[in-house]
């Protein structure tokens, strides 16, 4: 908790980000490199799906980040509304496009995985459908941020929307699952097959770690840019005032 409050000072936060980013970037690239090598040269083909199982190594991490991103936004929204943490709305605002991108990647890779597997580019199974709704929730958040000019009001409005969405997500997931069992009683579409071959787990975990580090890296840089953007805006207002008063 003390870390969170100590990070509340934007200047201190910025200096931490500046120190951490180069190191984090190096680590991310390294882990991505290892993950990709393992995925392409070490991982064996699945006995059922063949080589297409390799898509899992990017689909699963992306889907995980899609949910992780929204959870982060939900926690940050609580920070904005309840504790009024000064950086909470910055965290929420910058996480949205990143989370939306990974949601999009999850949908696209899921679709490309599905075509060789069961012959169609899209299927309304519970997981893909929930992921699509999640993308819509992200887009709504981004749209709301764009629509409201004053950052304070925008931050609080987006926080309310994010929490309403967060409460609704389990209900949506439940209803989509229920809807799915109604319409597809016989077939069970499971993304990874009923069990994942242990030999596939290592590349998967490495990629999960690499993607998560990538998310954190991009998020921190984005937060820095947003904090600087607000400072620039404040300074530009001072500049305008000075010009107006004829300095």
């Amino acid at each position, binding site marked *: 908790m003390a870390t969170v409050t100590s990070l509340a000072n934007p200047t201190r936060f910025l200096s931490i980000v500046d120190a951490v980013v180069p190191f984090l970037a190096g680590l991310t690239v390294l882990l991505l490199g290892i993950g990709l090598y393992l995925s*392409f*040269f070490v991982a064996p*083909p699945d006995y059922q799906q*063949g*080589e*297409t199982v*390799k*898509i899992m190594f*990017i*689909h699963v991490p*992306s889907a995980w980040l899609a949910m992780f991103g929204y959870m982060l936004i939900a926690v940050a929204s609580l920070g904005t509304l309840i504790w009024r943490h000064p950086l909470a709305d910055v965290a929420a605002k910058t996480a949205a*496009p*990143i989370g939306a*991108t990974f949601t*999009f*990647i999850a949908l*696209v*890779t899921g679709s*490309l*995985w599905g*075509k*060789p597997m069961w012959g169609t580019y899209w299927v309304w199974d519970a997981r893909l459908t929930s992921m699509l709704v999640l993308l819509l929730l992200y887009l709504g958040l981004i749209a709301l941020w764009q629509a409201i000019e004053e950052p304070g009001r925008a931050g609080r409005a987006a926080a309310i929307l994010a929490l309403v969405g967060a409460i609704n997500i389990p209900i949506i997931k439940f209803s989509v699952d229920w809807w799915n069992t109604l319409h597809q009683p016989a077939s069970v579409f499971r993304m990874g097959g009923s069990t994942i071959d242990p030999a596939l787990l290592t590349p998967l975990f490495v990629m999960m770690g690499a993607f998560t580090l*990538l998310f954190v890296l*991009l998020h921190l*840089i*984005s937060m*820095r*840019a947003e904090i*600087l*953007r607000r*400072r*620039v805006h*404040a*300074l*530009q207002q*001072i*500049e305008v005032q*000075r010009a107006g008063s004829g300095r």
Partner: protein
Amino acid sequence: MLNLGPHAIFIWAAYALTFVAIAILTVSILVDDRQQRETLAELERKGIKRRSARAKLASGKKK
């Protein structure tokens, strides 16, 4: 090179699209970051400082 089976095109497409999406995201974030830092540096060159920096200057002058 690598034998990715009969559905290789899907595997390549998935990895390629992922790469492109992440690249676009990364580049836009980095460009934005650079732009903000440059604009801020330029404003500070023009002598427009933040309240905290101006306060430090003022307190320095008083001494």
